[in-house]
């Protein structure tokens, strides 16, 4: 054990036994959110969408409905995990309350951001989620969590500053054409100049670059593995499986606004960023000796797949959306299970773990299932999604991108298997007795697995209708 961590652990605050009510309160809040969204989803026909709220500042359309369902379901699982761990946090009561409060504020900003019907408002909510998440990252247990949190805040703020610069370039373009731009998504397309000029091109390129960086796309990706590894597990899951989606929503909104405009350079930008990210992820996954970092690089690779899919456009639109939804559940499943492994073994090093399946049968099995889903095996949604994206790439004639994607995914598959499989099924150097796993922590993870299988085998008709509607909004069929 590292002496400094040992000292800090013994001298640090005692487990927050007095505020254990925080956990159930978080679960209750998450449950209320899921129930409300589910009721709205069931009671609202897709043909009634979009529904505008609060003087058209917010909108409930297919995109927001789909992502509300995803983020609130995932958060329910994360809140159950947090609730099961509150008693073991080495934090003072104030810090526990701060963590819970920031987590709730993060989710409020997420929900409002997903529903925002204004580009500037959406931008502000993405930044708000970052501001809430940075102090959460700073509560991590590495040696310099504040430095990591600062890097996260710096990269995110730079990415969002670049995005805002792009928005201003669009405004400048409209101004030079004698138009006043309307940032409401439902009116923005009509207020943009039809003839695309240099300012508009620059603005769109900057916006996609900035948002792409927020998604962890290369070249500005280095914050992602560092942050996901250093943050507390629940925060890593929040960032990877929840916050990721608000950036996806922003990209989808931009593509929806520019759908029908002549934006030939956009696919090239997305394709280059996607291919670069896959390559970087493949190299780094080969070098990773730490299972949490390995999952983080897998997140970079999934961002790459999404960018390549979006670059293809109509042929892969449905596949990309299926992939995004699947990725949210896969990332949540893997990070939460990784948190359980870290709590028991006390390390992130893959080589220090062997025979996990015998010590933690449920967590080991769920980690194996999550790894297979991550690698795109049937019968999970990610398998169908990857097939649809690959098929779209071939239809679009990008054979080099197809070859590169297949090669990099194969490398990632082999490298991940080489690290993870000995960890799960290897022979341990010393015997460890099996550890009892409370069913309540396993339940949400089983829910994630069921969702992943459903997405791969049978997508329920209402969800499928939502996916199709969103795919159509970005030019898919």
């Amino acid at each position, binding site marked *: 054990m590292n002496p400094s*961590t040992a000292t800090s652990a013994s001298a640090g605050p005692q487990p927050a036994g007095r505020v254990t009510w925080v956990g159930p309160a978080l679960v209750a809040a998450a449950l209320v959110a899921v129930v409300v969204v589910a009721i709205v989803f069931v009671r609202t026909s897709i043909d009634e969408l979009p529904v505008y709220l609060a003087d058209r500042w917010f909108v409930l359309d297919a995109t927001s409905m789909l992502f509300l369902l995803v983020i609130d379901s995932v958060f329910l699982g994360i809140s159950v995990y947090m609730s099961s761990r509150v008693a073991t946090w080495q934090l003072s009561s104030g810090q526990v309350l701060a963590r819970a409060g920031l987590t709730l504020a993060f989710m409020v900003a997420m929900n409002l951001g997903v529903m925002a019907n204004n580009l500037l408002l959406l931008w502000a909510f993405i930044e708000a989620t970052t501001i809430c998440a940075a102090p959460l990252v700073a509560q991590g247990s590495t*040696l310099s969590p504040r430095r990591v949190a600062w890097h996260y805040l710096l990269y995110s703020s730079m990415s969002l500053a670049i995005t805002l610069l792009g928005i201003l370039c669009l405004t400048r373009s409209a101004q030079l054409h004698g138009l006043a731009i309307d940032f409401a998504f439902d009116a923005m397309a009509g207020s943009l100049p039809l003839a695309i000029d240099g300012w508009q091109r620059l603005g769109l390129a900057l916006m996609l670059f900035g948002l792409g960086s927020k998604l962890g796309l290369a070249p500005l990706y280095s914050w992602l593995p560092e942050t996901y590894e*250093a943050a507390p597990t629940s925060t890593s899951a929040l960032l990877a499986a929840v916050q990721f989606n608000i950036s996806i929503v922003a990209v989808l909104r931009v593509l929806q606004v520019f759908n029908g405009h002549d934006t030939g350079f956009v696919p090239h930008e997305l394709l280059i960023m996607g291919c670069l990210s896959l390559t970087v992820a493949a190299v780094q996954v080969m070098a990773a000796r730490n299972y949490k970092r390995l999952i983080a690089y897998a997140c970079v690779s999934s961002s790459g797949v999404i960018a390549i899919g979006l670059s293809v456009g109509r042929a892969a639109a449905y596949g990309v959306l299926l992939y995004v939804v699947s990725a949210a559940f896969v990332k949540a499943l893997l990070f939460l299970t990784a948190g359980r492994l870290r709590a028991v073994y006390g390390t992130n090093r893959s080589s220090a773990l062997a025979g996990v399946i015998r010590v933690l049968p449920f967590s080991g099995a769920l980690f194996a299932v999550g790894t297979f889903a991550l690698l795109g095996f049937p019968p999970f949604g990610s398998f169908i999604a990857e097939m649809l994206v690959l098929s779209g790439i071939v239809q679009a004639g990008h054979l080099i991108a197809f070859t590169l994607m297949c090669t990099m995914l194969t490398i990632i598959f082999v490298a991940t298997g080489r690290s993870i499989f000995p960890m799960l099924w290897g022979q341990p150097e010393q015997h460890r007795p099996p550890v009892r796993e409370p069913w309540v922590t396993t339940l949400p993870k089983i829910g994630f697995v069921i969702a992943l299988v459903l997405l791969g085998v049978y997508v329920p008709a209402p969800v499928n209708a939502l996916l199709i509607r969103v795919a159509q909004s970005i030019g898919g069929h």
Partner: protein
Amino acid sequence: MTAPLILFLAAAVIPVFFGRTRSAPFWLLVQGIALGWVGVAYHGLLSGHAFAAFAETLVVRALIAPQLVRLAIRRRSEPNPDLMPSNLFAWAIATALIVLAFEFGAPDAGGHHALTLGVVGATVAVSLMLLAANDSPPAQLVALLFMENAIALFESLLPEPWPLPVHAALAVIYLLTVAVGAWLVGAPERPVATRSTDVRITPEPDA
């Protein structure tokens, strides 16, 4: 119109070429004042909205943000290095970037719009250069704020300021970003592990 723009650019360029980290809050204050001056020159102070935007710029960007940066730098109790490493190569690159930024603004309509675009481009370029050349968190925070100010200057090119609620929301977000950033930067550094895999964590911390 030219004077506040030159002041704005000088407040970004002088500290990067010649300044030290502890002098950065003063230059941020100067930049905030120049930004307020530009706003008044473009939009006047006649409407309530324009006055509110002017007051927000002065209070948030010229007073609160530099003060937070100053506190963060003081809390770190570190030596006072150059904001950007002083060497001929870095100076040459920075000068080239500034010239290129003004070339970027030149094809536009001309007059103060071209000058403003040049100043925005130059400040963004200098901020990126600073981020690339210095990995000390206070310098990174200063570079981020220079960039945010450049974006605010670009916003002043709009014929009408953004609606007040949007302006207020952006100001709050800016302020929170600076506050959280200053809090994170102000914490004293503990030794950093050379390889993340070397870190062994106490079992059952706050995983």
